[in-house]
């Protein structure tokens, strides 16, 4: 199968290349970058030296239609046209941007500041979290890969909403994320001396991922769910932790929570439940998933305050982006769902 990657010079693009270059079932055929067209891939992604022989191509959609499937990993707003044209040409598309994630076109105005030009496409697009939409993914022609904090938070919260355990108006998602989450473009605030050593809140209210988390949780809960999200930049390169604070509407104990989480995630190849009472790994921490496609999930209860904390950790470039996208590709193509994703994480890293 011939595969192309648009926006291959970015961080998500680079991670897609890392995974695709050793994937047993695909041929990496075309990787585009406007800025680095003609340049060897390893000049931009040094670690890939020796793995990929290709040079970047300019962004030529006609040529891209020679592929069976194309990943688009460009900034939001910039994927709108590219995806539409590839889709219309019959190419399967997995879009890593936000441009086809939301079902409600009005949400694009509110959260992204643009009027969506192809609202009818939004319903054709499948939200690419296998744990939530595996069957729809199998038959999709357009898959919209989730936001990195969104997928991490959603996997932590979904079992609670599915079981109607929590107050849907007081859910706080406090997330912490490494610098690769902001992509590869330098700026004053990503300059190392300014970005190192921070615990920097940004968009403490109205963060864009709110929209997709609310959309998906409302489907699961079958009612209107409100999310209060605050992300923080921390001094890491890869990794997300979502601390999902919720308030219980029913009484529940730890044993029941184990059952609820196991019930939803039994057999999932990339979910690990982490809630130990011994050792140093008692709750999820992105340190122990870096480089892998895992989302580690844990939980705890504060009886005094009826609070339930659901913790979820992922590598933002893997389960948070390229890993999820490859998993979706495997499903849609009927490959083994773990192919190309068998990366064991590290102790220590």
């Amino acid at each position, binding site marked *: 199968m011939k595969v192309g990657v648009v926006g291959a010079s970015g961080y998500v693009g680079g991670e897609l290349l890392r995974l695709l270059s050793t994937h047993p079932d695909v041929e990496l055929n075309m990787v585009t970058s406007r800025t680095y067209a003609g340049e060897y891939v390893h000049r931009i992604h040094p670690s890939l030296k020796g793995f990929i022989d290709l040079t970047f191509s300019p962004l030529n959609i006609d040529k891209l239609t020679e592929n069976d499937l194309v990943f688009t990993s460009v900034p939001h707003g910039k994927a709108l046209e590219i995806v539409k044209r590839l889709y219309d040409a019959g190419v399967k598309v997995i879009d890593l941007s936000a441009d086809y994630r939301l079902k409600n076109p009005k949400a694009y105005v509110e959260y992204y500041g643009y009027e969506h030009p192809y609202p009818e496409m939004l319903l054709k697009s499948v939200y690419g979290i296998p744990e939530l939409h595996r069957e729809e993914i199998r038959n999709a022609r357009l898959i919209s890969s989730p936001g990195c904090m969104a997928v991490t938070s959603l996997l932590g919260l979904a079992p609670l909403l599915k079981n109607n355990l929590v107050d849907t108006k007081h859910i706080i998602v406090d997330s912490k994320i490494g610098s690769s989450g902001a992509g590869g473009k330098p700026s004053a605030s990503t300059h190392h001396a300014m970005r190192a050593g921070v615990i920097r809140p940004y968009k403490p209210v109205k963060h864009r991922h709110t929209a997709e988390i609310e959309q998906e949780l409302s489907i699961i809960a079958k009612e209107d769910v409100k999310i209060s999200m605050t992300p923080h930049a921390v001094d890491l390169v890869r990794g997300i932790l979502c601390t999902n604070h919720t308030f219980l509407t029913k009484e529940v104990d*730890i*044993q029941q929570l*184990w*059952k609820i989480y*196991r019930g939803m995630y039994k057999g999932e190849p990339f979910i690990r*439940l982490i*809630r*130990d*009472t*011994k*050792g*140093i790994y008692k709750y999820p921490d992105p340190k122990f998933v870096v480089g892998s496609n895992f989302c580690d999930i844990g939980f705890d209860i504060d009886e005094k305050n009826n609070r339930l904390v659901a913790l979820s950790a992922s590598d933002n470039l893997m389960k948070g982006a390229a890993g999820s996208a490859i998993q979706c590709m495997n499903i849609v193509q009927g490959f083994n769902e773990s192919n190309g994703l068998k990366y064991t994480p590290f102790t220590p890293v």
Partner: protein
Amino acid sequence: MRKVNCPECDGEIKVPDDAVKGEIVACPDCGANYEIEEIGKEIKIKPAESVGEDWGE
């Protein structure tokens, strides 16, 4: 190696083939300790005191 499920979290606890009654086994997922109550065709376990071990804060 036989297995028994953890009453707390449903994790798979490994019971060595040469295990005997009274031996302590621990759950790989939630860390709970259990004492082997019976070991025949079926394995029965009951909660045991946790050693309260902590390898750091």
